[in-house]
């Protein structure tokens, strides 16, 4: 019974991984690719890890269970943070949106951040020039 549930979880996770990577290869710009790939692959890998945890419970290996649960929690916390940071960096470094996009809610905030960065850069330069 436990083995069957674990195999179903692993299969569902594999399907999510595959569709996320198809999205990564097919969608038109960085932001679309990031959201498709990150959401699907995070959930898919967490499902695989839960399946492996149940498998460890089934074969009586407590270490495998605990490690798989730990790893699932860690991926669930860190993978969206990493993708968010990369998308923020992509927007601030000027990667354009897809031409079919209808709204850009981050543009005003990005202008603020850019002007702040420019100000910091001039302050650093003045500090470097004064002896």
């Amino acid at each position, binding site marked *: 019974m436990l083995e069957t549930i674990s*195999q179903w979880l*692993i*299969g569902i*996770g*594999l*399907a999510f*991984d*595959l569709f*996320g*990577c*198809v999205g*990564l*290869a097919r969608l038109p710009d*960085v932001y679309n*690719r*990031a959201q498709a*790939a*990150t959401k699907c*692959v*995070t959930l*898919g*890998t967490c499902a*695989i*890890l839960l399946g*492996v945890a149940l*498998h460890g419970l089934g*074969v009586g*290996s407590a*270490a*495998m269970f605990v*490690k*798989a649960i*730990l*790893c699932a929690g*860690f*991926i669930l916390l*860190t*993978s969206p*943070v*990493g*993708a968010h*940071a*990369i*998308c*923020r*960096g*992509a927007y*601030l*470094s*000027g*990667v354009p949106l897809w031409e079919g996009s209808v709204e850009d809610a981050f543009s005003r905030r990005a202008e603020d951040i850019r002007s702040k*960065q420019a100000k910091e850069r001039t302050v650093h330069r003045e500090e470097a020039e004064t002896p």
Partner: protein
Amino acid sequence: MSGLTVFNQVAFSVLLVSSLLCLFRIARGPSAPDRAIAIDILGTLIVGFSCILAVWTGLEYYMNIAIAWALISFVGTLALAKYLEGRTYDA
């Protein structure tokens, strides 16, 4: 050949196809953030690979590899993002 071996082989093939799609995006991606995202996703897929290996071979230490890979992949992704943020778009 038992049913469990076939299941693991199918799981490995699906993960391999997903990794090939990621590699396609790394080779093809028009800008640097595309490649950074694809590398991040490839790291998460490798965690899945080690889990399937742990089930297939019955060796527990593959789970240690998965945990360590997830940690290091996160640090690398944050470093790439920090590098992208202070850089103008030039490709």
